[in-house]
Structure formats: C-alpha cells, structure tokens
C-alpha cells in the first residue's frame, strides 16, 4: 500500500508551486488530499492545453494547412484552366482553318475569269470598245479626250 501511495504521490502529486503546501505533514488524510489535488491538478492541466504557445502552434498549423490546400487548389485550377485553354485554342485553330477554307471559296467565286463568265453569260454584258472624240484644244493645251 505504501508503495502504492508512493506511486500515487508521484503520479498525482501536484506541483509544489501550484499547491503551495507540503504533503508530508498530514499522512492520515493523505489519500483524499492526493485525490483532491489530482483533480485540481487535472484542472490545471486542462487549462494548460490552451496556452498561448499552443494556440500559436495551432494557428500556424491551420494557416500552413490552409495555404497548402490553397496551393493544391490553385495548382489544380491552373491545370484545369490550362486544359481548357488548350481546348479553346484547338477550337480557335479549327475555326481559323474553316475561315481560310471559306476565304478560298470566296476568292474562287470572285476569280476574274468567273466574274467575266457571269457578266457575259448571265448578265449578257459585252467587252468595252474604244471610242474617241476629238475635241478642239482648250486653254492652250493640245490634247484629245476619250
């Protein structure tokens, strides 16, 4: 038992600085006192969990974790946006290619030979022929106008 008490004392003894008195002077009420002190000391232990130091560590950990998650999220976002960009670039390229094909078709449709063919065959136009009108010289200029 003595041994047990000794053990309990070692385990449950409050810190002298916290209790402020000696346990050696009152051996009869020792067990109860020890228990009471233990409870008290436990209360003190609980209070110790939210010390300033621990709070700082906790906050720093949370901040680091948040930043890490933010970094991961950003990386994922970047990859996702990059992929989207590539898709849009591919679409843009395709549209450009289609545009060039259409441009070629327009140029074919407006080729000089086709325009002339349409003018002659569909619109029944004729080639111009030169006609001259000789005018008297004007203001000292010796010119002839069409």
């Amino acid at each position, binding site marked *: 038992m003595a041994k047990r008490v000794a053990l309990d004392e070692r385990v449950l003894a409050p810190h002298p600085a916290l209790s402020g008195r000696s346990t050696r002077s009152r051996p009869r009420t020792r067990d109860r006192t020890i228990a009471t002190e233990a409870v008290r000391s436990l209360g003190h232990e609980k209070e110790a969990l939210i010390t300033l130091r621990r709070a700082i560590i906790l906050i720093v950990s949370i901040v680091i974790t948040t930043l890490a998650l933010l970094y991961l999220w950003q990386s994922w976002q970047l990859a996702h946006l990059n992929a989207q960009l590539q898709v849009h670039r591919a679409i843009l390229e395709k549209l450009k290619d289609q545009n060039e*094909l259409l441009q070629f078709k327009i140029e074919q449709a407006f080729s*000089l030979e086709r325009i002339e063919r349409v003018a002659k065959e569909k619109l029944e136009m004729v080639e111009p022929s*030169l006609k001259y009108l000789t005018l008297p010289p004007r203001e000292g200029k010796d010119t002839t106008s069409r």
Partner: protein
Amino acid sequence: MKRRAKIALTLIFLGFVVILGRLVEIQVFQHQRWLAQAARIQEREIINHHRRGQILDRAGRPLARDIKTTSIALDNYHMTKPEVLRKILKERLSLTDDYLEERIYRESYFTWIKRKVVPNAAEEIKKAVEELEAKGLIFVEEWQRVYPQGQLASNLIGFAGLDNQGLEGTELGFDGLLQGREEVIRIVKGGDGSVIGKQVLKPGRPGDDLVLTIDSGIQLIAEQKIMEGVEQYQAKDGFVIIMDPLAGEILAMAQAKRYNLNRFQESLPEERLNLAVSYPFEPGSAFKIFAGLAALEYGAISPDDWFSGNEPVVIAGYRFHNAMRMSYGAVRLKDIIKLSINTGMIRVAQRLGEESLYQFLKRMNFGELTGLGLPGEVAGTLRPLSEWSKLAIGAIPIGQSVSVTGIQLITAAAAIANGGLLLRPQIVKEVHREGKVIERSKPQVIRRIASPENVEIMKEIMREAVKSGTGGPAEIKGFAVAGKTGTAQKAIPGIGYVEGKYTSLFVGFFPVEKPELIILVVLDEVGTKPFWGGQTAGVIFREIAERIIDLRNLHPLAD
C-alpha cells in the same frame, strides 16, 4: 490507454518513415528513372509544319495559298472491323473496292488511304468510325496548296506537290522563300490526354509571302487574247509578255496552253511549259532594231545614209532575199526597219562589221539568262564570234542563226523603250515575312546599251514602223505605238529552214514619248495567210493594248 496511444503513434510514425523513405528513394535516388518514365507517358515531341507563303499579284489578290486539310491513314495491325472501315471509306471518299482491299489488308503500321481530304469529310468519317466502334484510322493534319484563280497565270505560278515542295514555275523558282521552317515542339499531356503544357524546342515560321509584279487583270486580258489569236490564226501555240519598261517589272506572262493549277495532275508536260522563258526561237526581222542601233552606236552609219534595198545580197554564194523578193532601191535606216528590208539591213551590218555586231548583241545580254528567277529558263543561242560562219553577217542582223527567248527579246526592246537602260526583268515585287515587307524590288540597271540620242532615233524609227510600215495593224489612235514586226522561217534540226513554218511576232510599246507598257506577242507556226507578224501578232498586240488602255483608264495624247 496511454501505452496503446504510444504504440499507435509509433506505428503511424513508422508508417510515415516508410513513406518518407520511399519518397526519398523515388524523388532522390530514382529521380532520373521516374522522370524519364513520366516523360515517356506525358511528353511528346511533335514537328509543326508551317504553311507555305502566299503568292499574290501586285494588287494583293491571292494567286496561291495554303488551307488545312486532313489526310487519312490506317494502322493495319491495330485496326478493328476492317469491313466497316472499308464501307465507310468507300462511301465517303469514293474509293474503289480494289484500292481499299489492297490498302486495308496490308501488313503495315501505317498505310495512306487518302491524302488531303476536305476537313468536313474527314470529320464525318471520324464520327462514323466512332459510332460504329471501328478502330485503326489515323487522321493527320496537313497543308494543301490551292489556287483561287484556277488557270490564270498557271504557267508562271506553277504548283507545289503533295509534300508542299515547289515543283514548277514561281513555286519552284522561289521555293526557298515560300517554304516555311519546321518547328519542333514538346507537348505535355494530362491524364485525360489534353495538352497541359507546350515548349518550343526549335522555333519555326511560316514561309514568306511573295507579291508578284503580275497584274491579274492584265494577265487575264493577255491570256484571253492570245487564246483567241492562236485559234483565229490557227497557230500551233503562242504567248504574250507585258512589261513596264521603266521598271523592268513583268505585268503579264500569258500563253495559249494553260492548265488548272488545282488539278495539275491532269495536265500534260507541254501544257506546263512556260514558253516565255523556255522556248527559244529565231526573232526574224524584230532583230533589225538591235543591229540598226548597233550600227548607229558604233558610228558605222548615220540615219541619213543611203543603202541599196535591192535584192539579193550574195554572201559566200548564198543569196539573201527580201520578203516576197521585192527590191526597194535606195533606202535609209528608217525605211529598212519600217519596211523590214532584209538586204538593206545586211548592207548596214556589213558596214558595221562582225565584231561590233557581236559586241553589241552581247551588251544586250543575248545568249545569257536574264536572271528572272524562273525555272526552265534557257539562254538562247548567240554563238561566239570565233564560231561565226561567213553567212553570219547576213543572217544575224535579220534574226536568223540566232535564237532568243521571249523574256530576252522584250527585255532588250524595253531598253530601247526606256531610253537606253538594260534593266533586269523582275517578277517579284515584294517579299513579306510575318506581315512585314522584308524586300522590295527596285529597277536594276544592268548597263546602258546606247546613247540617249541614238536610242531616240531608233524609237522614232520604230514609231514609223507602226505608223506607216509593217506594224500598221498595231496602231492605236492617240497612243503613239512604236514597234517592230518579225516573221521568221522556222529551222528544223537536220533539215534547215522549212517552207510554210513561221514564227510571227510583234514587239511594241506605247506611248512612244514615255512608254507605260511594252508588249511582245509571239505566234508559233501560224496556219492562216497572211502569216506576217504585223498582220497576226500585231493585231493581237492592238487588241490587248486597247483592253489595257480601257482597264487602266489611260488617256490618249495628240499624235
């Protein structure tokens, strides 16, 4: 409880140590190995073939450009449902059963099915094979050369082959500029196959754009008129060159035989020739202007000297005659050229002498390439003086025993038109790289060929040749055309000059005071009568010139 917690914590810690150790092993000790493996899966190097440069006319109208197409190939070893593939390809690409049978059942990882399919058709095929879950088709994006103007200037532009290399004409002659530079890119692919990163390993660029000196409107007129002329005069062939004599820029290079550049595979080799640079011919009487100018420049004659225009002239027992064996009595240089009197010109040349004549013709660059940059150009024939026969002094001044190309003849005549400066003919006006002009052509003077005074005399004589000489049909009221006709009997190797086969030509410029255009019309083997250059090529010259006058809204001057 505490003990258990300690054990649990220890185990977790050990677990982390194991993971950390493995990470160190992977990240540090096996770094290169895993990096290489990741690269193999995620990264690929691809070669990006840039487009060929465009070919444009002087107004910026596209004559040749690239469009994106899709080529279809087959991985024969990994294909599934070959019969489904065959059905789709047959329907969508109009390919025959035999062709597909041979291609589909080959033992190969890569077999071309069809190159350069229109993108929409390729998309449809892609969708169809996906729906029917057939595998093995490979779709490769490629550039295809297309020619919006079809046949226009086909012999000049030429074409590029399946692998986008220039094969004919400007496409071949300026292939170095037109070809783009390959770009090597490393791409990084994500887990879903999408590209998440790109790195240029070797930068490339698209080919340079060429702005030609050609005016499409004038080119079309020239082509139409030479085709009509060849038909009207039942000629074997014909071509036209139109040049700005003050800049040396070619405005048109047209010929009767042409082909559709978008279907060049269907054309014949003779249709693809560019006669203006590759067809040498004897220039006949058109050469008299050069022999006459040589005589003036060397001081051998003066414009007022009189010569006998009677025939024949006998040299080493060979008789040189005038056309239709006419005699003209006493004539001056002006009459000789105006009426195209062979005997008179031979007598002028005899006074000039062989050496001076040869030196002058060399100064005109006859017998040499013009440096235009087009493939297939020939130098013509001007034999060295040491190889001249006794007949040469009779034959060469009247355009026999010498051969020229159209581009040589018009370049030399342009030197007379512009006052005596022999200019290098040019076909490329500007070179553009990525939207910026990197090269702009300027008139390149090779040399002065004669004094301005003597050139002026020759221009006046050429004006007379049109006003009241053999070039009469080329006259256009109000535009002071100057020119010279030529009708050369054709020589067949081993036979000599053949009766009834002539090259008929006319070279002329207008207005004579400040020429804007010089036009050469050449007809090969005219089948109708009369076959004279003035009455055939001269007429075509006038028709072309009138259309250009209208196109350019040129105003006539008092003449």
